[in-house]
């Protein structure tokens, strides 16, 4: 009995019970499709986050005030209130030969108004270096000018949405807006849809860091962004930044320096784990489909007892009967798996249409393993019914009708 004949026989058997076959195909297809869609989502989220970090800037160090110990341990006995990060600290970092650019950042919220309109906005104090360090882009005008960092120049760069809401189509460049109790001239507008680290720059207002210090009446910086010259120098630069700041803070290491790489790697790990988790959840539906296949095949064996008896009477060996039922189960799961692939691919594409920023491509490993698991499911869960069929006593099977 050759392979083609076996396949044909199994296909005829599947077609003979078309409703049952159809339901089984749906169950398997849903299982495979859910694995594909869920992993696509997980993988899409991972790629999205990694992409966001890449857009944040390359070779980036982020300096935060305060020491972040994640290793636990008892809190120190002596008070360790961190010293503020100041503009002088930031400028001192430029002394490191590994550092190319330093962008001190100060953040606060305030109302911004023009004419009769006003709204709340996130106000970011920054320097000219912010633009290259964070890879921001301008739609109009120019960014903060190169100048003494302490200088509180009355200029601002606004996000596209702020411009639309306050100026409603009228030209914004050169106009004076009021932020808090001060007046600033609009010198630039950021490109619409700009995003970094999940913060939409459309509702951002950037003013010189000196102005922000006066506006919010504080000398403390929120962050210092440091761009390192090359990727290889990142560890050395990180150490130097810590050393410089420790010297300036009376020998106390009260800052945290995180590398973009470290954050990226962490997120990558978390999201990869997430993808595996959702793949596992999808695999549960594959398992359910497998059990359904077993159930259906058992019913098929019971219904076709007479047929099995006949096959044996006309000379089929137990092995032949086994292979016929096994092939039937594998065909079911393989066909269902392929339908599931198409469905899953379509689902992923659909999600991408609704959330274009999510690159929902099913990862190759998920596609392959979903198909393999589908086939294996058919084999494993088809084995028991097929064995039962192979072992049926022909005399008893023939007497049943």
């Amino acid at each position, binding site marked *: *009995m*050759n392979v083609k*004949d076996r396949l044909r*026989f199994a296909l*005829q*058997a599947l*077609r*003979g019970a078309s409703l049952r076959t159809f339901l089984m195909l749906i169950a398997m297809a849903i299982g495979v499709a859910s694995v594909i869609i869920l992993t696509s989502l997980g993988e899409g989220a991972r790629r999205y986050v990694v992409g966001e970090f890449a857009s944040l800037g390359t070779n980036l160090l982020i300096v935060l005030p305060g020491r972040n110990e994640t290793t636990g341990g008892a809190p120190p006995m002596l008070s360790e209130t961190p010293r503020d990060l100041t503009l002088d600290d930031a400028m001192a970092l430029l002394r490191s030969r590994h550092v190319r650019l330093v962008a001190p950042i100060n953040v606060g919220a305030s109302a911004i108004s023009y004419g009769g309109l006003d709204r709340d906005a996130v106000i970011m104090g920054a320097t000219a270096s912010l633009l290259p360090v964070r890879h921001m882009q301008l739609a109009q005008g120019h960014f903060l000018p190169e100048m003494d960092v302490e200088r509180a120049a009355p200029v601002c760069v606004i996000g596209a949405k702020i411009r639309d809401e306050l100026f409603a189509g009228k030209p914004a460049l050169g106009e004076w807006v009021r932020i808090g109790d001060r007046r600033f001239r609009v010198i630039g507008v950021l490109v619409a849809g700009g995003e970094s680290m999940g913060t939409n720059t459309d509702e951002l207002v950037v003013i010189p860091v000196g102005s922000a210090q006066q506006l919010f009446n504080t000398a403390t910086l929120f962050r210092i962004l440091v761009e390192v010259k090359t990727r290889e120098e990142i560890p050395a630069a990180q150490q130097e930044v810590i050393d410089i700041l420790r010297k300036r803070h009376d020998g106390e290491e009260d800052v945290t320096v995180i590398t973009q790489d470290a954050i990226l790697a962490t997120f990558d790990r978390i999201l990869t784990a997430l993808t595996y988790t959702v793949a596992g959840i999808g695999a549960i539906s594959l398992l359910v489909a497998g059990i359904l296949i077993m159930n259906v095949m058992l019913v098929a064996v019971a219904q076709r007892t*007479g*047929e099995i*008896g*006949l*096959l*044996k*009477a*006309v*000379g*089929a*060996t*137990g*092995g*032949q009967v086994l292979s016929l039922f096994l092939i039937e189960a594998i065909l079911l799961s393989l066909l269902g798996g392929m339908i599931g692939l198409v469905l899953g691919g379509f689902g992923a594409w659909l999600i991408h249409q609704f959330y274009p920023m999510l690159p929902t491509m099913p990862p190759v490993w998920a596609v392959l393993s979903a198909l393999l698991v589908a086939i294996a499911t058919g084999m494993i869960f088809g084995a028991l019914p097929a064995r039962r069929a192979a072992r049926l006593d*022909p*005399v008893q099977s*023939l007497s049943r*009708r």
Partner: protein
Amino acid sequence: MNDTPIIHLEHLDRVFQVGDQQVHALNDVTLDIAQGDYLSLMGPSGSGKSTLLHIIGLLDRPSNGHYLLEGKETTLYSDNEQARLRREHIGFVFQFFHLIPRLTAAQNIELPLILAGVPPEQRIPRVERVLKAFGIADRAHHRPEQLSGGQRQRVAIGRAMVSEPKVLLADEPTGNLDRASGREVITLLEELNGRGITLIIVTHDPELGQRARRQLHLVDGRIVSDRARAV
């Protein structure tokens, strides 16, 4: 026809365990059947006639005794070897036809050849020859449900004959047919016997049983009479 019987049964027992009781379906049956003979097995229900047929057809194994098919001891054969013997030497015809409903008449007839691994180009002419010989060529692509009872049984006989066996076993072949179709089927079977095939029919029907050249009566698993046809 040579002297060695095609079927030789010696002190055959078949014991079933039913609950905590042992039932002797066959009790010390010894029987020789010559090549080309025409045999009927008769007896009341539960007399063991079907069990005997199943053992001769290698679908069942005796509990004790010997069964020689063409001089070869079959009781020592494995299941797979017995399947091969069934495929090559034995054809079955059943009361309820046992056609596979989703397959056409031609496909049902082709089935034993597929199982035997006969290549397709050889199968097709053999199936066509059988369809023609049994007068069902015009029904070749009909499924069993589209055939009359007589036609179904002819397809079943075609299936039994397609691998050209030496022994044809029929278990109540007319039991599910009207008189006219039943007579047709019997005529067909007797024609096959006339061409040299060994025919064994199990039946309740005395009229049918008395047509056979050799008539065996079983009661409680024993052969109680073995006579030739009254002329």
